[in-house]
């Protein structure tokens, strides 16, 4: 067996699984809180339209949540099957964080989701509101633990190294609240806010294209657009802070993001280029002089470390550079549409059809931005799995190519079926609209 191929397959399989999984929590994290809003509006007003709205979006939520649960169960197995070296070396830190996620979040979400979805006529109103809040709280707690672990892998602190090379947590508070955690957690929550609000706005716009008089859909379109209009600029701010934090703790990732090959002063901002890994330079580059130094160091003449400084422990430039531009480009487009839509619909005005089509087209835009951002941060820390501690190649398993290939095929087929069915059902639900 060729070790490189097996490593590539193991990474591709895990990347596929985690990339598929992340789609659904990205929606449910914020959609859960949007549901709390719908539910409270109904509790306050007793208005049947809010109830119908809540019931429609609970269906979307339950479906999305189920997709997240089943793909998440897969993840819990693949940590061990695909990355045994990871668990051997850092299991004493990763394990407890994952265990806390299960104990404090998974059971809470799963149990109260049952009450939330099926129990409206079985429990008093206040208890149902509480169940809705607990589900939202549970999803946020879940994100807290998983991002604590991911951030620790990016910027590991608070540990000691034992005799066998295993990492032992010295200070759990330091491990959990590691330097990149506050930024990453906020960045992810806001990303979810954008993804969910564009999903709500997009599916509502789709409904309005078919039934322009549907008041409930008009209201949810407005809700989605306004949330997006508020969250998008916040995300720009947090994204910038996150970038500065990355420059401090993972400068190699920044070098890849900005395609800075050689350490230099007064670094230009590369708007677009085709990074050439072989020749260590950018082809067809469009640059703005000194802007990268200005943005990252707030000084036009400041020095930035290039890939040459970090080699051989430097990430591949092209995917990080390109994915970053997809993320930022998508973000700018989402910000523009959210502001434009909110402006056009101000004071209760009806949305013209081109705005409806735009929102409908942007239904899953959050997925593209989130996946791109995830590629930036995960490929950007290569060749490390845990920065400075454990290389990805050291953590891979010794599963043969045949079982890897067989299971890989099975996963791809299953995910493709699930994803197509998910999008069809969502569009179908949205087309029918909220039912009184």
């Amino acid at each position, binding site marked *: 067996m060729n070790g490189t191929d097996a490593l590539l397959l193991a990474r591709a399989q895990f990347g596929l699984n985690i990339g598929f999984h992340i789609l659904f929590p990205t929606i449910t994290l914020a959609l859960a809180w949007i549901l709390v809003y719908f539910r409270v509006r109904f509790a306050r007003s007793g208005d049947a339209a809010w109830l119908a709205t809540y019931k429609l979006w609970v269906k979307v939520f339950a479906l999305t949540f189920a997709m997240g649960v089943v793909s998440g169960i897969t993840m819990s197995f693949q940590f061990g099957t695909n990355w045994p070296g990871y668990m051997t070396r850092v299991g004493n830190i990763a394990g407890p964080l994952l*265990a806390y996620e*299960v104990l404090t979040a998974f059971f809470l979400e*799963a149990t109260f989701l049952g009450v939330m979805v099926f129990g409206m006529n*079985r429990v008093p109103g206040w208890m149902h509101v509480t169940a809705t809040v607990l589900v939202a709280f549970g999803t946020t707690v879940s994100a807290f633990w998983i991002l604590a672990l991911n951030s620790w892998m990016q910027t590991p602190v608070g540990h000691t190294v034992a005799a066998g090379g295993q990492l*032992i947590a010295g200070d759990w508070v330091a491990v959990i609240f590691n330097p990149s955690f506050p930024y990453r957690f906020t960045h992810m929550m806001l990303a979810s806010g954008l993804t969910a609000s564009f999903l709500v706005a997009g599916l509502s716009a789709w409904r309005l294209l078919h039934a322009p008089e549907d008041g409930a859909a008009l209201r949810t379109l407005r809700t989605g657009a306004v949330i997006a209009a508020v969250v998008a600029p916040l995300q720009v701010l947090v994204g910038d802070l996150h970038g500065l934090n990355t420059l401090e703790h993972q400068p190699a990732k920044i070098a890849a993001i900005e395609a800075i090959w050689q350490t230099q002063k007064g670094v230009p901002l590369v708007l677009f280029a085709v990074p050439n890994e072989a020749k260590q330079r950018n082809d067809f580059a469009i640059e703005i002089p000194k802007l990268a130094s200005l943005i990252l160091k707030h000084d036009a003449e400041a020095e930035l470390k290039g890939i040459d400084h970090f080699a051989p422990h430097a990430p591949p430039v092209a995917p990080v550079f390109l994915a970053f531009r997809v993320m930022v480009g998508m973000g700018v487009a989402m910000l523009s549409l959210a502001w434009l839509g909110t402006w056009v619909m101000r004071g209760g005005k009806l949305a013209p059809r081109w705005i409806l089509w735009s929102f409908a087209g942007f239904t899953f835009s959050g997925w593209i931005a989130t996946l791109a951002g995830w590629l930036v941060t995960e490929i950007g820390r290569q060749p490390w799995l845990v920065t400075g501690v454990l290389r990805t190649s050291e953590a891979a398993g010794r599963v043969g190519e045949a079982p890897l290939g067989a299971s890989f095929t099975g996963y791809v087929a299953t995910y493709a079926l699930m994803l197509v069915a998910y999008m069809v059902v969502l569009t179908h639900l949205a087309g029918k609209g909220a039912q009184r």
Partner: protein
Amino acid sequence: MTLDLPLVFTALMGVAMLAYVVLDGYDLGVGMLMPAADQREQDLMVASIGPFWDANETWLVLGVGLLLVAFPAAHGVILGALYLPVAAMLIGLMLRGVAFEFRVKAEGWHRELWNWLFWFGSFLASLAQGFMLGRMITGFEPGFGYWLFALIVAGGLCGGYVLLGATWLVLRTEGALQKKSLDWARWGLVWVALGVALVSIATPFASETVRAKWFDFPRTLALMLLPLASLAAGIWVWMATGRLKRGAKTAEWAPFAGAAAIFALAFAGLAYSLFPYLVMDKMTIWEAAAHPSALIFILWGAAVVLPFIAAYSVFSYWVFRGKARAGLYD
């Protein structure tokens, strides 16, 4: 006195795994019984497990999570050796998990497709779990006989899940479907009895360690309480379903309780056979354990959180007590 952390975590993991097989067992069993029911009954069957399946599967995540966390060395060995059955189980669980959601929203042949996938996923996951158990018992030994043994265990576990699913439906449904469920329960029981008997006879042949542990007089006499109690639980299920079939007054929870008892007893027998090994004859719980600092940290969390989990699980079963009704989302 110092706490034997690996032992404590073995117990915790055991509780999580037992909770998983009984709880997800009944909803997997209901899934496997789908083809035997008509469309209206299928809706009721799914409605009876709708509020619970997700939390039930969380016990698997906890069980595997504890294995991963507390016994990282064993986790790698076990899941590496079981790579393909694990993948099959995961694909099965995925298909049936989303089929819950898709089947109620689909119409026409789409609905039929998701019904079929719900059955198929439930069956695939159950079969894979039984197969994994069979491989565990023999310490992943190669050879045709050992694979055959694992297949027999897989068949037995499917029977067990069908028994759990059918007795769950006895508790949660009424009228014609309940009558059908009583018959399914009896078929399941016969299937389980055959499976347990085969596995009990085969295991001492398949593993010398197990043979030595069970056939060691006079300890054997005390150990015989386990199979005797299982037999009693089986007879209890048979009698209770018989009385319910005749319309005599018997608690509707009695067959399910009996089925759960059979699982608990079989689990105790397996635990006794394996202990102190996590990987049969190769790795003990102490050899596989993680660093105490990690274990203590989790233990604190578990001690604080598990009572809450138990409390709100009970709350959820209380909210959804009584017979299942169609119209899942209303």
